[in-house]
């Protein structure tokens, strides 16, 4: 720094001073102005600051209820779409049901074999059979059918758009803006407009899932095309490929592997949303969990929750082939069926599955045999009772789950919430403005301030502060836990081997499932919501921290060691600083997950904005739901952009 100043001379000092002036004085003045104006207006959100979103949304909803029989928007647009989706869903479900359970298991095994060899086949088939063993075969098929429909539609929309975005920078820029916004919206928020347009049940659930699964489909295609090396495109062009030849002969074949890996993400995401879409009144696994949760009957929620886990594992196993992951080298070691040509494999698969289904029909194997099923509801309920009797209080040292819950509520959650709720609203706006400015300058500051004023205008201030307090606590706890664990996993291969399967498994679980074990331990309220969110957010956070550390190139680390750095010095002076950005970006991603989970946690009594959307969805109070949903999005935007700026801008010194 000193050398630079000397070298550049006086002008640099002068400009330094003016920069510092701009950096400090202007935001101070703005913050002071906000405070003065705010104090003059009053500490509570003034009544005139009202965007009237609630009454307006209610009017829109009333209008749709009155007109959905005759207005062209419904008869010509929404209804045909809804009918097509319902018909497709019925058709897929018909096929799955007529394949009967032996046929479906055969199909799962063959797909698994083809994509990942014998291991994937066995694990996939066993996990899928597990759904039947728990007694939820038909619910699983209902859920999977809906997911398949949504995935097909998402791909039909996403792949062409992805090709566009992959080949044209302008299209990429446009779509990226839309996709980035779409990404910060928790799933619940998508549900509201869908309900307004499509009502509830299958079409609404399918549409909501499509809306959610299309962005990753676009992303995977575009990313796949963009990961094709420039030289391959140049080779194509240099031999005179037309644009279409280039796509068909060079770009798409080379993007295939990346696209297959992305397909797995699309499927898992769609599955998670379909489960959650039980809120919209579809039957299936999610519906069973939901009704268990609503009646606070852990046993009734636990068994279908476990079935969801099994189904997720099965889907994940058979769609992330080792082959797609590791490339062609693995392929050579795989069985002949997996190596062979695609169309022959398809014919063999279809033939075998149909044959099995016919034999099953002949043998009368219509339902999953009750001899194989186990009802775990009662044992679970007993376990819950036992936990309640033995672990809620009085456990030495830790004090039990009830004591933990009380401690967290009284000494952490309430103080943070009270701080946010009791502070004058303008003080929060001013603080967000200041944080935005310190993070990335005036644009972000303006965005933060505007978002909080928007929340005030939505008339959801106290609820938003409640949710924000929960989010902040969750993030603090998650980061405090994840960073040390992530450092362990990032530096020790043994820790990595130990935790990797757990992290992998956690990644495919739908958020919904995490609610079940926590009510098992903590009953309902804010604390189980927070614990579920932490559990949900930890694995990706740990994974990203360790990934960040592992991505630090070996050369500087070796250099540090060669100068005699201790392992700790090497970590603190080399690895952590070099991984800082990656770690911050990891935290950024975690925050979005936390927010979506806090919203879902409203189902088990976490309150806040999530509860507004749940009310909106389940009690048809659309206005309330929309106000809550939009507030969530505004919060998400602020949290996302601020943490993103920490990851992308190097900290100024």
């Amino acid at each position, binding site marked *: 720094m000193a050398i630079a100043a000397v070298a550049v001379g006086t002008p640099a000092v002068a400009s330094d001073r003016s920069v510092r002036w701009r950096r400090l004085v202007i935001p101070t003045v703005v913050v002071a102005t906000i405070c003065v104006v705010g104090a003059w207006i009053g500490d509570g959100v003034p009544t005139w600051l009202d965007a009237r979103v609630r009454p307006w949304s209610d009017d829109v909803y009333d209008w749709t209820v009155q007109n959905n029989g005759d207005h062209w928007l419904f008869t010509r647009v929404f209804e045909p779409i809804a009918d097509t989706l319902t018909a497709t869903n019925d058709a897929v479900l018909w096929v799955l049901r007529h394949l009967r359970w032996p046929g479906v298991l055969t199909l799962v095994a063959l797909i698994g074999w083809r994509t990942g060899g014998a291991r994937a086949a066995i694990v996939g088939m066993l996990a899928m059979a597990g759904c039947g063993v728990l007694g939820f075969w038909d619910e699983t098929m209902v859920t999977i059918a809906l997911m398949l429909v949504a995935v097909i539609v998402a791909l039909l929309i996403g792949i062409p758009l992805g090709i566009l975005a992959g080949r044209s920078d302008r299209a990429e820029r446009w779509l990226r803006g839309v996709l980035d916004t779409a990404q910060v919206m928790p799933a619940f928020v998508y549900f509201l407009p869908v309900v307004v347009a499509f009502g509830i049940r299958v079409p609404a659930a399918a549409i909501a899932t499509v809306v959610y699964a299309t962005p990753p489909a676009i992303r995977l295609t575009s990313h796949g095309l963009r990961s094709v090396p420039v*030289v*391959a495109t*140049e*080779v*194509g*062009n*240099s*031999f*005179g*490929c*037309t644009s279409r*030849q280039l796509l068909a*002969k*060079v770009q798409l*074949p*080379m993007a*295939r592997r990346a696209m297959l890996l992305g397909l797995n993400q699309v499927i898992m995401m769609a599955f998670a949303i379909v489960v959650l879409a039980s809120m919209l009144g579809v039957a299936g696994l999610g519906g069973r969990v939901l009704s268990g949760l609503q009646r606070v009957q852990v046993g009734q929620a636990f068994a279908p929750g476990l079935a969801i886990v099994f189904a997720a594992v099965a889907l994940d196993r058979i769609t992330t082939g080792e082959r797609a992951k590791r490339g*062609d*080298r693995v392929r050579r070691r795989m069985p002949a069926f997996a190596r062979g040509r695609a169309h022959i494999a398809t014919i063999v698969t279809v033939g075998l599955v149909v044959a099995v289904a016919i034999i099953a029909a002949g043998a009368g194997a219509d339902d999953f045999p009750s001899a194989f099923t186990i009802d775990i509801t009662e044992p679970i309920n007993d376990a819950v009772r036992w936990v309640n009797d033995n672990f809620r209080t009085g456990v030495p040292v830790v004090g039990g789950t009830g004591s933990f819950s009380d401690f967290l509520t009284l000494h952490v959650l309430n103080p943070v919430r009270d701080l946010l709720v009791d502070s004058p609203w303008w003080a929060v706006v001013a603080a967000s403005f200041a944080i935005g400015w310190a993070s990335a300058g005036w644009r972000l500051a303006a965005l933060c301030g505007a978002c909080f004023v928007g929340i005030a205008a939505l008339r959801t201030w106290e609820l938003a502060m409640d949710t924000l307090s929960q989010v902040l606590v969750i993030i603090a706890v998650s980061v405090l836990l994840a960073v040390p664990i992530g450092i362990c996993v990032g530096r020790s291969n043994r820790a990595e081997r130990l935790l990797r399967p757990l992290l992998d498994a956690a990644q495919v679980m739908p958020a919904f499932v995490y609610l079940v074990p926590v009510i098992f331990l903590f009953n309902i309220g804010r604390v189980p919501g927070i614990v579920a969110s932490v559990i949900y957010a930890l694995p990706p956070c740990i994974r990203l921290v360790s990934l960040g550390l592992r991505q630090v190139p070996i050369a500087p680390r070796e250099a540090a060691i060669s100068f005699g750095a201790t392992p700790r010095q090497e970590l603190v002076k080399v690895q952590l600083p070099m991984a800082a950005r990656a770690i911050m970006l990891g935290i950024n991603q975690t925050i979005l997950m936390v927010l979506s989970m806090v919203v879902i946690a409203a189902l088990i009594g976490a309150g806040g904005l999530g509860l507004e959307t749940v009310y909106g969805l389940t009690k048809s109070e659309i206005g309330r739901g929309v106000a809550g949903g939009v507030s969530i999005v505004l919060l998400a935007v602020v949290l996302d952009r601020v943490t993103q700026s920490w990851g992308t801008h190097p900290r100024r010194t």
Partner: protein
Amino acid sequence: MGAGATSDSVIEVRGLWKVFGPRPERIVGSPSADLSRRQLEATTGNVVAVREVDVDVAPGEAFVVMGLSGSGKSTLVRCLTRLIDPTAGIVRIGGVDVTAADGETLLDVRRNRVSMVFQHFGLLPHRSLADNVAFGLEVRGVDKSRRRAKAEEMLDLVGLAGLGSARPDQLSGGMQQRVGLARALATEPEILLFDEPFSALDPLIRRDMQDEIIRLRSEVSTTMVFITHDLSEALRLGDRIAIMRDGRFVQVGTPAEVVGAPADEYVSNFVRDVSRSHVLAVESIMTLIGAGGAGTNGFSARVPLGTKVCDVMSRLAHHDLPVGVIDEDGIVVGSVDRIAALRLVAGEDVLDVIDGTGDR
């Protein structure tokens, strides 16, 4: 062989510019083009990769472009078939103005007249070797059996017979580049473009591949534009060499001209470490002897014109007499003595004897 423009050159480049960055047209020929690279990038955000290049390549010629990394070689060669669109200037390939061509003409040029060999081979990993080799034909719409036959033939030509069904990732780098070469040859192009084809290979393999090119040139008379950053490669393969620096040609000449008479400091730094006796022929240092003049006797040996100086060194060392140089008719036209040879090795200028390009 001379640098003079002739109407029968297969590649004709006039005033070619390529500027990267925003609104590149305004940089061409403007004063800001003369700014240093760093200044220009700081003020306008532009990078001048190729500036004001003129070239004529004669049919059958091997034209080598040499320069350090970042000097604009790849950009130049890509501008020839508009893999990169030039900012200004004209490129004619076999008389067709490529820079003004519509899509169809451009495709025709790329499909039928020019093929390219890439630095990192650029094989398509999802295709077998045979399908890689036949790629150009497939794009052109040639039917499958003809493609297959041609691919076999080409793989045979580059010494990879019978490997048609293998995949690129099963091959070593050298073998991959043989496939790249076969792929370029399969379309029977008039012009072959090479963008540093061997720089990713080990030195020994690189030498093999250079021999392969020399052998090919004796069999087919394709015109070649060869990019390299390796001077010895340039000297081995080139009929003419262009030295490129900051997007500009600083010298164009035969290997002997470049080594014997570097146009400036930059080029002489480049060629300083070359063993000049390996590149220059005896005529560059010989003392001329008039027809039937005195001193036609008293040579330790007689060598034809074009003999490299290094080949007469040992004779000069062992005998006090000079070596005579004879022309095609066996008539002695000059003599080389120890002192001349030593002066060459010592790095003294020899350009007065060369018919230079007038660059200096």
